[in-house]
């Protein structure tokens, strides 16, 4: 009985190992894809029109509602 069961055990361990390996590869890959989907860049500004507000150097389009434009470059 023992001899007949051992191949089955080895196969199970091998499968488990494969699953573990697949997990270590697929997991981060999925995570990476998820991150990529969350990539959310600001719009590129070819010719920034700089100003300062609240100590921040901003493009003039950064402000829509508030704040007076100070000393526009």
């Amino acid at each position, binding site marked *: 009985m023992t001899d007949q069961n051992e191949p089955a055990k080895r196969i199970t361990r091998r499968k488990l190992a494969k699953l573990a390996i697949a997990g270590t590869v697929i997991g981060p890959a999925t995570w990476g894809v998820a*991150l*990529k989907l*969350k*990539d*959310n*860049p*600001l*719009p*590129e*500004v*070819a*010719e*920034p029109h*700089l100003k*300062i*507000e*609240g*100590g*921040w*150097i*901003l*493009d003039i389009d*950064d*402000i*829509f*509602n*508030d*704040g007076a434009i*100070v*000393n526009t*470059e």
Partner: protein
Amino acid sequence: MIHNANSSEFSFQGQYDFCIIGAGPAGISLALELAKSESRIVLLEAGDREFTEESQELYLGELLGQEYADLDVARLRYLGGTTGHWGGQCLRLDDHDFETRDDIPLCGWPIRYDDLRPYEKGANEILNLTSFGRVRRALDDNLEVVTQRWSADRAFYDISNTEPIRFGPRFTGALETAEAIDLVLNANVTGVSVESATGRILKAKVENYGGQTHTVQANHFILAMGGIENARFLLQLNSKQNNQFGNQGDMVGRCFMEHPTQHCGAYFITRRLYSNSRYWQLERLLRRQKPEKAISPTQEFQLNSGIMNSTVHLDRLYRRPLNDQETGGSEFIKNLEFEKDYFFSGDAFIVSEQAPNPASRVLLTEGRDRFGQRKVGLDWQLLPIDTKTMRTSIVEVARMLIRTGLGRMQMDPKLWEGQSNQAYDYSWHHMGGGRGCPIRRKQELWTEIVKFTEQKIYTLPDRASLLHPVMQIQRTRLYSSHFGLPII
């Protein structure tokens, strides 16, 4: 051998080949090099092996210009000098830092970095550095070397963070066993004897803290006291010797320079890039603790903008939102469209080069110290170009962040307005005060040193007891070898 001038049995024995005044990094390095020859060297240290109040208080001075650290705090007056509180950072200068610029008066070096390169290896060994300015890799538990990642647009500086070498404890053993070196502690040089016919220095008067006076004779006298004390010593000497010691042009003590520093505030990045671009590399680097990251204007941009060199240091980014205080009450961030949990922020600061300014100077005040020596005054001044350098550099980095959609950055509104009369932080680097003439070309430097050579007195590079010890040691070796001194 190590002696103590405070000891009642102490006296100088015979004539020395070299008398080095100041046992900081330059003085100790030079003494150990000279000891490889047949020369007899006396190395005079005004302080003791360790910190003492009676020595340190002799560094008291008057601050007359920009806000600055008290002079008895910014320097250390004992064996090993200011390396006793050195932070351990070494930074390789850019090649173009040495070049003369027509738009910056008194700018430029009489040498090029290539002149120093042969001495780089030896200097690195003294400071326990290897591959200075090369790929970042661990040398040992205490030393990492930072690579220059890329330099197409803006260069990352090479910054090596070492375990700071305290020259006192590090080289005490070597100085103790060096038969050719007499290191004399508590030896304050308070006067020199000048041969009237030749202008040569024949001997120096040395006082201890017990009121006893000694005389030391040497063929060559070498000043290695740092950027402020070298200038102070030469100014005192010239005040009694008709300015013949390199001060015919009234330049000794002038063009004192610092590295003006200012905290910019926060910066943030909201974007992860997947394309292999320079900005992708930047973004990846900014998420790492090491290496230190700095963005610097190119030489061409400096020339076109009429600014000096600078580094805008960007600290590591952490995934965290900015609070209301950090946003300065501005609502603009709410208007930007990005995922709120995908927001990385960090701090930034700028360190810039200062343009040579004769009005920024080390000078003598009317006060006297316990040895009757005139106390030192420091009138650190900035020019409008220095403010412009900081402003332009920060704005250019911010412009890059906006142009690429990476993020935004803060700066001091006063600096944006170009206000030049504000206080800046500083780096305790004490540069420039030792120049003897408005050096522009190599030959002028050699002429100046030859003049000193004829008088048997030399000044060692003032630059670098802190940020550029490698430079200081390299230059010491360069100058020495040029004049046939037995330096390897």
